[in-house]
């Protein structure tokens, strides 16, 4: 199977004054095209930093990152932005919608940065909002939507530029358990329907049952790879 993302011996060292914090210490991982993958770790395991690396939000101190076979570890900020816009869709724990824009406009925004014309943007955004069952809320602003609805808008936004990878950072972290389940089922459905590669970063054991494979992170390194759901025993 083709690896769409590959991290090779990735180190990330933050300097906080005189103290050096090693957030990632030789992280190796591969993401295969079309899979639903979880990166699991407790807080402090380097989970968030690994998300930044995988999502091309930051560059490593050391090591190499390949996206679609291309080494992106040395790209500058603007090239990374372009790359992210095209190839990666983000879903955040706190939704991160733009408050001044309607649901439809939020979904249109990533396409705007790719210079897609307005008519096409509107059509695609409408279609995506239908896919997440929000066709009746397209002209509402984020503060007029419930948490679950906001996350659906965020998922539609993540799919706007038809990216190869959808990266979800604790996607149910701010939702009650019932809504969380709905969102996870939506992910699963979209995974099946669009054959997208989905990478979820979480510290919630219960979510791993939705994915096909899980990397367990500890101290900035992968300590285990597990197929299917993981249990408490596996991480101690």
């Amino acid at each position: 199977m083709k690896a769409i993302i590959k991290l090779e011996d990735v180190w990330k060292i933050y300097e906080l004054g005189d103290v050096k914090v090693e957030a990632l210490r030789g992280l190796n991982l591969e993401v295969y095209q079309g899979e639903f993958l979880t990166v699991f770790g407790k807080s402090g395991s380097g989970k968030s930093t690994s998300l930044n690396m995988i999502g091309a939000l930051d560059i490593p101190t050391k090591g190499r990152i390949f996206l679609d076979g291309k080494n992106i570890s040395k790209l500058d900020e603007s090239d990374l932005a372009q790359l992210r816009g095209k190839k990666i869709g983000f879903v955040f724990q706190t939704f991160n919608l733009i408050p001044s824009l309607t649901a439809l406009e939020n979904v249109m925004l990533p396409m705007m940065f790719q210079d897609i014309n307005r008519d096409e943007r509107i059509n695609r955004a409408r279609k995506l909002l239908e896919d997440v069952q929000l066709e009746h809320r397209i002209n509402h602003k984020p503060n007029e939507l419930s948490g679950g609805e906001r996350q659906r808008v965020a998922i539609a936004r993540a799919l706007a530029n038809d990216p190869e990878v959808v990266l979800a950072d604790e996607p149910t972290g701010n939702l009650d358990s019932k809504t969380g389940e709905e969102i996870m089922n939506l992910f699963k459905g979209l995974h099946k329907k669009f054959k997208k590669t989905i990478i979820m970063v979480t510290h919630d054991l219960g979510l791993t049952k939705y994915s096909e494979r899980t990397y367990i992170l500890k101290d900035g390194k992968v300590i285990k790879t597990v197929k299917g759901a993981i249990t408490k025993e596996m991480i101690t």
Partner: protein
Amino acid sequence: MEINEIIRLSFRNLIRRKLRSGLTVIGIIIGITSIISLISLSQGLEESITGEFARLGSNNIIITQKGLSGPPIGTKALTEKDLEFLEKFNEFEFVLPGYIKSAEVEFNNQKVVTLVSATAQNLADERAEVFGFEFAEGRNLNDNSRGDVFIGDVLAKDTFDKEIFINSNIEINNKRFRVIGILKREGSQEVDRIIGMSEEDIKELFDLEDTVNAINAQVKEGVDLDSLVEEVKRELEDFRDSEDIDVQTPAQLQEQFSNIIGIVSIVVVGIAAISLVVGGIGIANSMFTSVLERTREIGVMKAIGARNSEILGIFIWEAATIGLIGGIIGVFLGLLVSYLIKLGASLGGIEINIIYNLNVIIFALVFSMVIGIVSGLWPAVQASRQKPVDSLRYE
């Protein structure tokens, strides 16, 4: 990202913080309003002064004591002796004395203050016809015109509750005069409100004895004005034994007045410009706050593909829009204010010209936008340089 999308997005962000945007815009409005109204007024003033001087003709010179068109500096007034001395110059066709005084005029139990004159334009002297006034009704003064006056059109029709007709009597400094002529309306506030009387009457009324306010000399054809001005000044000062004479051509006088108006308007507009600087600082302040508030949003936009240049563009456009909106409203208010000043002044009997100059308006709009851009530049650069990772983590 297309420019119209950037504009649309910027506009949305401004509307989102209506109150703050509004307050920031007011800073620019005040500056542009004052600049537009002051320039309109000062250009109007300059134009009417140019008009006044045009009627003085081009082939003559005006001799006054120093300080008459500036602060009083205790100089010796011109006298009839000076007039006689100047009559001996071969270069002059003739010389005429001029008198101008302000006086209280009473008609129909109402009193106003206006100018009373016996000048080159209205002397009962056939030589003065080269400067002549045009009459709408009645006639000019002549040699037997003691106790008669002619008056300007505005003074006749629009100054008192009742209109002054030919043969009406008016009182000037409590002395009765008969109106024998009314001038055609000229659009000049001095001429339209003037009272012309005979040389003898004005001397008696103001107790002038042999004092003359100004001497107007008509120069013969073909004489070089510039060298004549020098010569007249030198010789008259020798004769009077004091260096206190101004000899000027109407063109020079006009230039002098224009210069004064120019300096005054530069100073006044300069002061108004300070308020624009303050307005610009207001924009910068508002934009810094906005960048801080939207740190997370900037991170999100970057995460979903916004380049640094696009973030920069969005924020600069926001600042430019604040400037431009302030400029548009300011121009509109500036025109309105100058119109209201004109209206208010004309109710008080003073005619003020205002000139609406399209170039000034365009300049004000561009300038207000430039102020916005300059003020927004720094905050925008800060926004665009934020690292997505840090911005996304910002609480």
